[in-house]
């Protein structure tokens, strides 16, 4: 708590406070830290470790933006949000950006007045069932009891899927992933449904992961990405292009380890040079230092590195790149050019 805020409140100084907030970039710079909304804990995506340091795939986006704007990946205040609070937290200015498994949908982008700046993970809703149930397809689930982790578009996709296929089901909506898993493991529901990435992450933590199978059906498109408030395009540009810088860096072979070297001795690839600020004025165009992208990459690594260290196949979560491979490798991850 800022002391002056406390005193100000006590003295009713708040009565005099007025005036709309300035541009988000100025706020962040003045504050010296980025307020970034994350989940309350999804392994691999955003989760505090045993020392209370936030780690994960979404967290890396926050850190990259902080590094680009403030030059310090640690200058982030992580604000855990639930499905209920995330939008108001962003709308009311409590957080500057939301990097939390949030699906980019039409109504959220338009009706709720937010701007999705890109997609950092292409997900889809899936089903997990015990292997001994003998179910091989989600279309065999008529009459099943389904545990749902609430707070995303999960409930709606589920309802649509069962209705379209003319099947009935009993929903058991649970707020936290941990409790939903607990119900599933106790056999209180036949099926557990949420985003496939979360299914894989949670299955990895089971006592016997092989006793559960993730069904092949993907019942929804869940492009997850960071979002910002509507109406501050400059700030939206910064977040968007920080994400793009991470993606381009992977495509161009810039990694956490070689980024300093590449910046120090510019090579002959003009796009790398523009990205790292050794050529052109890209940083100035979005109101940042020339080295903004270099800082971001040096702090967290490129997109592929972030993926591999947090959720990739070498981790306990073990997600394959799949749709989230670079477009050159048959995936959907694609950054517009830096020029």
């Amino acid at each position, binding site marked *: 708590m800022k002391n002056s805020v406390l005193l100000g409140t006590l*003295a009713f100084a708040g009565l005099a406070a007025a005036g709309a907030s300035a541009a988000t970039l100025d706020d962040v710079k003045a504050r010296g830290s980025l307020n970034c909304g994350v989940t309350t804990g999804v*392994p691999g995506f955003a*989760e505090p470790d045993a020392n209370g340091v936030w780690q994960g795939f979404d967290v890396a986006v926050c850190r990259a933006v902080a590094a680009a704007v403030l030059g310090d990946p640690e200058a982030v*205040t992580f604000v855990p949000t639930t499905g209920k609070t995330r939008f108001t937290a962003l709308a009311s200015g409590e957080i500057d950006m939301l990097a939390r498994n949030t699906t980019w949908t039409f109504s959220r982008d338009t009706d709720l007045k937010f701007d999705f700046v890109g997609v950092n993970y292409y997900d889809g809703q899936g089903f997990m069932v015990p292997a001994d149930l003998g179910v091989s397809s989600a279309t065999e689930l008529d009459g099943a009891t389904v545990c749902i982790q609430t707070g995303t578009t999960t409930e709606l996709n589920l309802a649509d899927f069962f209705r379209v296929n003319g099947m009935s089901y009993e929903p058991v909506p649970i707020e936290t992933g941990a409790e939903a898993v607990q119900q599933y493991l106790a056999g209180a529901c036949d099926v557990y449904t949420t985003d496939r990435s979360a299914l894989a992450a949670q299955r990895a933590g089971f006592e016997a992961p092989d006793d559960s199978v993730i069904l092949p059906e993907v019942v929804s498109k869940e492009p997850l990405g960071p979002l910002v408030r509507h109406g501050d395009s400059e700030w939206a540009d910064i977040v968007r292009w920080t994400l793009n810088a991470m993606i381009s860096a992977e495509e161009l072979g810039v990694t956490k380890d070689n980024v300093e070297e590449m910046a120090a001795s510019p090579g002959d690839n003009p796009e790398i040079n523009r990205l790292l600020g050794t050529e052109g004025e890209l940083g100035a165009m979005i109101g940042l230092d020339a080295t903004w992208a270099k800082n971001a990459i040096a702090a967290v690594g490129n997109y592929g590195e972030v993926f591999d260290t947090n959720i990739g196949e070498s981790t306990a979560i073990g997600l394959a790149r799949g749709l989230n491979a670079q477009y050159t490798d048959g995936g959907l991850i694609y950054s517009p050019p830096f020029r």
Partner: protein
Amino acid sequence: MSDAHAHSVAFVRDSEIPPAPPPAAETGVVKWMRENLFSGVVNTIMTVIGVFIIFYLLSGLIPWIVNGTWEGASIRDCREVLQGNGGGCFAVLRERWAQLLFGFQYPSELYWRPTLAFALLFLAVPPVLFFKLPRWMLVFTALYPFVAFWLIWGGTAITPIFLLLAFVAAFFAFKEGEKRFGFVAGLAIGLVAFAIVAFIGDFVASEEPGWLRITSVPSREMGGFMLNMILGLVCVSLSIPIGIVLALGRQSRLPIVKGFCVVFIEFVRGVPLITLLFVANVVLAYFLPPGTNFDLIVRVIIMITMFSSAYIAEVIRGGLAALPKGQYEAADSLGLDYPQAMRLIILPQALKISIPGIVNVAVGLFKDTTLVSVISMFDLVGMIRGPILSSTAWVGVYWELWAAACVLFFVVCYGISQYSQWLERQLRTDHR
């Protein structure tokens, strides 16, 4: 006749028999058992049922505790050690104990500060609870909030010192003002004095931020049982004065004041705390000027304080109503004005009657602080439901964690309620 038979009697006792012990069934354990356990058919059946229940509970509980393991870094280690012998995996408590108490974000090298603040609590609270302790010890109580604030949140000591000074200044200004201009003017002067000193303090703190500075911890990083304690203590202590004002307002003859108090109290008592927390979390931001960024913890404190002050107001209203009308009339006939009558005659008696009720509200409130876990704050329950249960190392460890939560809450709440019962006995002897 008696003469005739005197010779035929073979033996006549000429000394007293030594007293025999009562029959085995009428003494000691057996008597107690006959009276308390087997005094009838129904009673015997109930005893058997009771023994069966106790046996059932203990037969599950004892192996769980005795066989439990305290070693291991994850549930897999536990499973290896236990080999399915029914023991509990208490290693999770050992490994995550600090997180359960302080949340996952409070810097671990600073754990001594909230611990010290908690220890000082035992110095600060008894003077309020036990009337027999010397009055001067109340100084500890008065100083405690500022010390605890400094210890837990850190930062420069100037802020709490000047806050304390502001309160002192306000108190003396009020005393002086009241003597010269009356109660209301005194109150106004006190407020002004408070604001002036607080303003100076704010200024000084911004000029000299390094003075007596200890590492400051933002309130986002509060968590675990500490958060429950902070919320409980802060909200109860804030809501008592507000509750008194509301209770007086509800009894007032001024229709607007009374109307407002009635509407406020009934509104707050009519809605669940969880909706008020939703308001704090989701809606309150709309009603504040853009840019004012209260911490969630401050918003939650405001809402819980509102909530508990309405309940405390009702308890105090009961105390006010329980006073004989003669007390009010006596105060009036002495020529005391309203503030004097309340301060000198009515409130001291009414508050004394209300203390057990207030303590009950406090216990209820302390338990209700667990609801903040629903709005993504990591109190004790939030820590268990969120980070610990979802961590890959401890997925599937429920009972040990919930048992720990139960024990922590039980110790505190049972302690307070025992105090409340003790106090009720004390107060009862005063009246009879």
